[in-house]
């Protein structure tokens, strides 16, 4: 079991059990001073512009205090995780919602340095991997693009979805983490609990081989529509 103070910090207990307003305020100040660096770290990592991160930070404090600390009261310490891990998830959600409200961006829509969606680039990468080799004949001039290309793209996508659905849950998760979310092999290893990134590479290689075989059985032998 974890250290009890990690699972349910004394400051949090004091805050939630305080009867008097002054005691509650004092406990809130103590809790805040203990976790302030982490809260600031989260707000800065989500809202990267300085003024946004400070606004997000102020909003987070307001939301955590709202309705007599309703969000903090929802914390259900089951002894397996630290309060800080739970707090980071909650604060991140608040910050992503804040950014989405301010800029209208969906919280999953990460972009790379060229403004392209990470998910779109990663999906293209998966298609290319499954094609095995790049076929010169598949590079089509935009002006001469066949009219049924979008339909064939949809068909290809549907075949891929079905092939992915046949994988085991952990393999499917690894594919999504790599090709949908753009995580590095090291990040995936850390998240899934594999020893090194090389284990991830080996799993990915086996998964793409399996997907390629499943697609070939459906008559799909390349990534071009």
């Amino acid at each position: 079991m974890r250290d009890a103070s990690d699972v349910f910090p004394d400051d949090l207990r004091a805050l939630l059990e305080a009867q008097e307003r002054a005691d509650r305020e004092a406990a809130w100040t103590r809790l805040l001073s203990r976790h302030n660096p982490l809260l600031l770290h989260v707000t800065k990592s989500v809202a990267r512009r300085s003024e946004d991160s400070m606004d997000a930070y102020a909003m987070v404090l307001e939301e955590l205090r709202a309705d007599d600390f309703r969000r903090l009261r929802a914390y259900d310490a089951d002894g397996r995780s630290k309060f800080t891990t739970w707090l980071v998830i909650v604060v991140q959600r608040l910050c992503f919602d804040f950014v989405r409200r301010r800029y209208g961006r969906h919280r999953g829509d990460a972009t790379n340095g060229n403004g392209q969606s990470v998910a779109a680039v990663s999906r293209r990468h998966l298609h290319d991997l499954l094609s095995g080799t790049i076929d010169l004949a598949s590079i089509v001039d935009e002006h001469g693009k066949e009219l049924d290309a979008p339909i064939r793209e949809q068909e290809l996508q549907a075949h891929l979805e079905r092939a992915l659905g046949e994988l085991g849950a952990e393999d499917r998760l690894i594919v999504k983490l790599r090709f949908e979310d753009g995580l590095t092999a090291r990040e995936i290893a850390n998240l899934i609990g594999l020893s090194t990134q090389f284990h991830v590479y080996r799993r990915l290689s086996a998964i793409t081989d399996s997907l390629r075989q499943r697609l070939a059985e459906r008559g799909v032998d390349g990534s071009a529509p």
Partner: protein
Amino acid sequence: MESHEAAPRHPPTEQLAAFLERRLLGSERQVLIEHLADCAECRHDVTTTSRVLSSARASRRRRLIQPIVGVIAASLVFVLVSRVQPNRPDRTGDERSQGVNEPDAMTPIVIVSPANGAASGRNTVLMWRADAPSALYKVAVLDSTGTVKWSERTTDTSVVIPDSVPLSAGATYYWTVDALRQDGRATTSGAHWFTR
């Protein structure tokens, strides 16, 4: 590629936190992995949290190592300063044999503010408790390489670091107070630090 309809019930936040800390086992872990494979929103929660926790750990490591380097550097400076302390009268044979004033001579100066690691803006005030009546204090501010950025002699128990001292925003600085008492004996606060 996926929709939320495929995974309508999200797991509790505590379960995501336990997964991140590798505390989920057996069927519970398997069920969560199946959910994560189909739910972009929960996957987003765990991937971003994992990244934030990793970077928080890395910056905490940096914060822990930096003061150690600074304390070593500041201690070296203090040792050098102590060695060249002038006019330090030798104690009598009686004092040496009876250990007179020995504990008192070793009492360090108590720092009042700023607290170790506190963030400090412009016009930083350094305060400490009086060591002995009419003691002369020497305050020194050092950077993380041990270079003295500013020093001051005073009989007061506080000083303000002038604006003219070039301290970088976000950097960590170390400071010491050495007291020279009227009887010629000296004591120190040891190294303390603040961030600008």
